[in-house]
């Protein structure tokens, strides 16, 4: 058992948002395919894909309908077979409007001819795996949706990474999609990890899982092969943030303003690993993902949902929403983005759909009492209240000068604030405005 170190600060929101109980023991269920899907062209970090189909065109499942643009981008694939009925725009979580393709499902689930299993996976080179990851639209499914092919490309890095850090911590309340994936498909996750190790050329992988998921730890340990270590981590938010995870598993700190590569690490989520395995072995692009549906729904569940399914359909599968829904959240309650409409389609970053009630609506803000709780909670050792005060005076440069750019936006400060101040929001404003004025 490796000695793990935990970061300073952090919070324990599990007692309050203890939604994990509702779904952590429920197996993943395949959601019924919908009549129509709306597939967004921007489901990843980087340049949006360019639509390459026309209205009226018949498409197959897994066919490319949006082509990657530029180095940091990813293609988008049809998640059903059927006819393209519209090229439109759709509103994503967070409020951004992006181009989208609407496909009417013919319920034949006809795979595209480009989707075929790999005959000899052992013969694949690192470059082959990266090409497959790119062609199959594999992106970080933990939420950030960074194109995996770019991450796996370690050729130009100096020093070379020596550790693959796998995130199975799932530290947000309510979320259980990664948990169930590890319990049910540990072998597939491990398979993906091995491909990622091959592509990045590292010989050591460490999987960090919070100790509140003993069954996942057990399943992953049983499936682990040589060079892959499964480590139980203390359950504390935000354990799953890459810098905290690297610290817990390797004892290394990523310097401010640097990427994990500076600590000789490549970080991937367990769901991404599973998707990579599907891509390499079966040639399958990402056409679905596991979504935890919890909060104010009749039957909380873990659903495998096709990309592009509107939330309205997802809710039907969970037995409908119950009374008192005030917010629609994509992702976890700590970092998730809100949506204004149930027409929003499922995208690759949708780890959870949480309709939450009054528990998600904060009391009115009051004056800062300088208690210092935000500072104690901040895993990055920042001073959120001070940044908040500076931002409210319009001093964005001042906020950047005391490290606003080091904020990972985990929300621990806002969570802990007894005066219920929107500290993270102020820091986000500083990051956004600060770039324009250049201190």
């Amino acid at each position: 058992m490796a000695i793990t170190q935990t970061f300073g600060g952090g919070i324990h929101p599990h007692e309050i948002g203890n939604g994990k109980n509702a779904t952590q023991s429920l197996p993943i269920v395949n959601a019924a395919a919908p009549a129509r899907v709306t597939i967004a062209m921007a489901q990843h970090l980087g340049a949006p894909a360019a639509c390459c189909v026309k209205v009226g065109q018949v498409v197959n499942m897994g066919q490319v309908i949006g082509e990657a643009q530029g180095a940091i981008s990813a293609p988008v694939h049809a998640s059903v077979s059927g006819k393209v009925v519209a090229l439109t725009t759709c509103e994503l979580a967070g409020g951004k409007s992006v181009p989208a393709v609407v496909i009417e499902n013919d319920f034949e689930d006809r795979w595209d001819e480009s989707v075929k299993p790999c005959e000899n996976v052992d013969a694949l080179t690192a470059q082959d795996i990266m090409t497959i990851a790119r062609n199959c639209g594999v992106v970080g499914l933990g939420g950030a949706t960074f194109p995996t092919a770019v991450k796996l490309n370690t050729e130009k890095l100096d020093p070379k990474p020596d550790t693959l850090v796998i995130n199975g911590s799932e530290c947000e309340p309510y979320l259980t999609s990664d948990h169930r994936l590890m319990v049910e498909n540990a072998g597939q996750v491990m398979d993906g990890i091995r491909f990622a190790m091959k592509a990045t050329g590292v010989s050591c992988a460490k999987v960090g899982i919070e100790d509140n998921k003993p069954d996942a730890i057990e399943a992953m340990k049983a499936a682990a092969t040589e060079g892959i270590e499964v480590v139980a981590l203390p359950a504390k938010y935000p354990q799953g943030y890459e810098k905290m995870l690297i610290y817990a598993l390797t004892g290394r700190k990523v310097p401010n303003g640097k990427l994990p590569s500076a600590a000789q690490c490549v970080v991937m989520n367990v769901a991404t690993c599973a998707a990579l395995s599907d891509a390499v072995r079966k040639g399958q692009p990402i056409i679905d993902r596991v979504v935890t549906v919890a909060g104010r729904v009749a039957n909380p569940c873990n659903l495998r949902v096709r990309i592009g399914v509107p939330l309205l359909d997802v809710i039907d599968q969970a037995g409908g929403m119950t009374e008192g829904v005030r917010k629609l959240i994509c992702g976890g309650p700590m970092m998730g983005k809100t949506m204004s409409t149930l027409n929003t389609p499922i995208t690759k970053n949708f780890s959870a759909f949480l309709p939450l009630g009054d528990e998600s609506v904060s009391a009115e803000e009051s004056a800062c009492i300088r208690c210092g709780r935000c500072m104690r909670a901040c895993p990055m050792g920042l001073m959120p209240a001070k940044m908040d005060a500076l931002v409210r005076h319009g001093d964005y440069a001042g906020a950047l000068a005391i490290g606003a750019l080091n904020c990972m936006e985990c929300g621990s400060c806002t969570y802990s604030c007894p005066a219920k101040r929107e500290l993270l929001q102020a820091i986000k404003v500083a990051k956004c405005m600060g770039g324009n004025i250049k201190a």
Partner: protein
Amino acid sequence: MSKYIVSCSPHLRDNVSTRSIMQDVCLAMLPACIAGVLFFGYRAAIILALSVAAAVLSEKFYCKAAHIKDTTGDYSAVVTGMLLAMNLPSTVPYWMPVIGSIIAILLCKMIFGGIGQNFINPALGARAILALSWANVMNTFAAPAFGNLAGVDTIASVTPVSGVANGSFTLAQLALGNIPGTIGETCKIALLAGAAYLMYKQVISWHIPVAFIGSFAACYLIFTGFNVNVTLYQVLSGGLILGAFFMATDYSTSPTTNKGKIVFGLGCGLLLFWFRYGKKAPAEWCSFAILLMNVVSPLIERVTGNKSFGEVKK
């Protein structure tokens, strides 16, 4: 318009609120207040009640007059009222806690912007003004009489602080609190119990009290040739315990950084030692030590920034 709220994350909040923190502070001070009433009789209870009532009403009045939201619901005025009364002798006339609370709330707190904005501890600021304006009254202490609720007429000639190390009182008396003194400062056991509660609830941290009492005691040890008895006597005398745990830890007027808190506590301890050691001053200087440090607190905070997680040696 959508019927769903769109907002910045996070979408969950801790149950702790300004009000719950202030209520915890009130609860933590209650044992010492009860001890004060038991030792000094009904006058202590009336002074406490008058002080709290005047503090809350002053804040209500100010909010109304200034056309701002009524902030008395956060219980911080109750804390100020209680603290002020705890710093008064039980012998003061009844108008004194009232005047004191008005000064504390209006002059020391609200005109600087209310909670979180004041630069000196309101209760201590008011106490200092009272002590300087009515020095005689403020330094006349009743001799304690446990359980004699009818009140005490005997005026004590000597208080632990003025009778430096002359052995007028035993250490047990100092700890228990049946000594002359202000209403809330004498029973160290009750104060420490309250302080333990606040630390358990993470309302206060160890940094300021430990640095404060630690530096004060260390100085006494050194200057008395490691005389543990005299040092303990000093630590348990006067307002040190009350001040270190309940007044120096005031959020608004102390640094927020851990390093800053230690510097702040050290400053308080050294100042108090300077004021007390070898002097026969009749007054208790603990509150002045804290007030002086209150004023330099912003400076301390400025020079003791936090070290961020990713600040690594190159």
